[in-house]
């Protein structure tokens, strides 16, 4: 792979807008899951943030339905950054500084750099109506996808750095997993039987290996199909056993950015029984 190919992959990427549009809908729904209840207007009568809360609802609703998508998604991203960095880090709302909230905010930022209203949106509906009135063919669901590459890089870097962070004796010995198990489930009594030791070692090493594999393998079509299944399960287990809030569903959504956009488009066509004319980049 040459630098030219890498640059072409990163900056020259174009393709179907369906994947990023699905991400728009799902990420905004996740943003609501995380923050919408906290921003209900009556909660902010006294603290002067009622106007911000109202803006949040307007722009996120527009982004969800895909109305003025680039603008509304950018505004949504700005709102999430305000929540994480101003209210969270500066004003001390500690819960807003957690990793799952930060990931959600930056995912919105990168998604705002994509043509995320190109499909499944009011914008698309209006574009089709204009084309019909003018007697022109429907506009293509197509656009520049360098923002989707940033989302894929973010996904990969999360796995890479979290795996690096686990490369220490505390984690690889299984001790940290024992801490989590005791903290959430069994209390201060030791988990020190030989069976526990084998399970904790095995889970610790396989988690780190899977995270390294996900960090690099998501960029390649062949390993990706298996790694995505393993990753979906991994995050499902995280959600079921630990306390990760919106992290699991955000990572599930981000996997869409790791797939070839044409592949996603074709898959949706197939689901709808439409023979697809799209050719995945990997088939070229």
């Amino acid at each position, binding site marked *: 792979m040459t630098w030219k190919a890498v640059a072409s992959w990163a900056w020259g990427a174009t393709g179907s807008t369906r994947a990023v549009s699905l991400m728009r809908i799902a990420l905004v729904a996740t943003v609501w899951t995380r923050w919408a209840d906290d921003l209900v207007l009556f909660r902010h009568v006294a603290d002067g943030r009622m106007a911000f809360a109202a803006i949040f609802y307007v722009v996120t609703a527009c982004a969800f339905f895909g109305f003025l998508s680039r603008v509304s998604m950018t505004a949504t991203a700005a709102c999430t950054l305000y929540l994480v960095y101003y209210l969270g880090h500066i004003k001390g709302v500690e819960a807003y500084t957690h*990793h799952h909230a930060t990931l959600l905010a930056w995912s919105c930022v990168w998604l705002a750099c994509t043509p995320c209203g190109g499909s499944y949106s009011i914008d698309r509906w209006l574009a089709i109506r204009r084309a019909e009135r003018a007697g022109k063919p429907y506009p293509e669901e197509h656009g520049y996808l360098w923002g989707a590459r940033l989302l894929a890089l973010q996904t990969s870097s*999360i796995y890479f750095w*979290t795996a690096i*962070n686990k490369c*220490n*004796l*505390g984690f690889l*010995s299984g*001790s*940290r997993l024992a*801490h*989590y198990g*005791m*903290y*959430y489930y069994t*209390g*201060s*009594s*030791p988990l020190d039987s030989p069976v526990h030791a084998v399970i904790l070692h095995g889970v610790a090493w396989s988690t780190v290996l899977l995270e390294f594999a996900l960090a690099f393998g998501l960029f390649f079509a062949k390993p990706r199909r298996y790694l995505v299944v393993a990753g979906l399960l991994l995050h499902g287990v995280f959600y079921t056993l*630990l306390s*990760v809030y919106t*992290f699991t569903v955000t990572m599930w959504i981000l996997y869409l950015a790791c797939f070839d956009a044409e592949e996603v488009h074709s898959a949706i066509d197939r689901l709808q029984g439409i023979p697809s004319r799209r050719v995945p980049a990997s088939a070229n």
Partner: protein
Amino acid sequence: MFSGIALDLFEVTFETLDVDGKRVPVDRFSLLGYAEPERAPRNVRTLKTRNEVWVLAKRMCTQLGPKASLYARLRDATRRGWKTLEDGSIDFCAARTWPGKELVPVRREPGGDS
């Protein structure tokens, strides 16, 4: 991520002496009358501070009787794994304070353990 979770956690086991003077493990739950450990109060089930260990040990000493001994093996959860805080050498029933450690008095909530 998640690396800061579960660092305020102690692992603890207790031992006492049998009639022959041999060390035998003590189940803190059955000694204190908690038939279901998962329903025991948080400060019996999941210990997070030395104060909680001290208070629990003294309650267990009371249950064991006036001349009993109670030893604790205590480890602290850290990012690098377990850090041993007590190796079972101190008899908590005989000690009036935790040797070498300053304990902040624990205020017990009226009518409850947790």
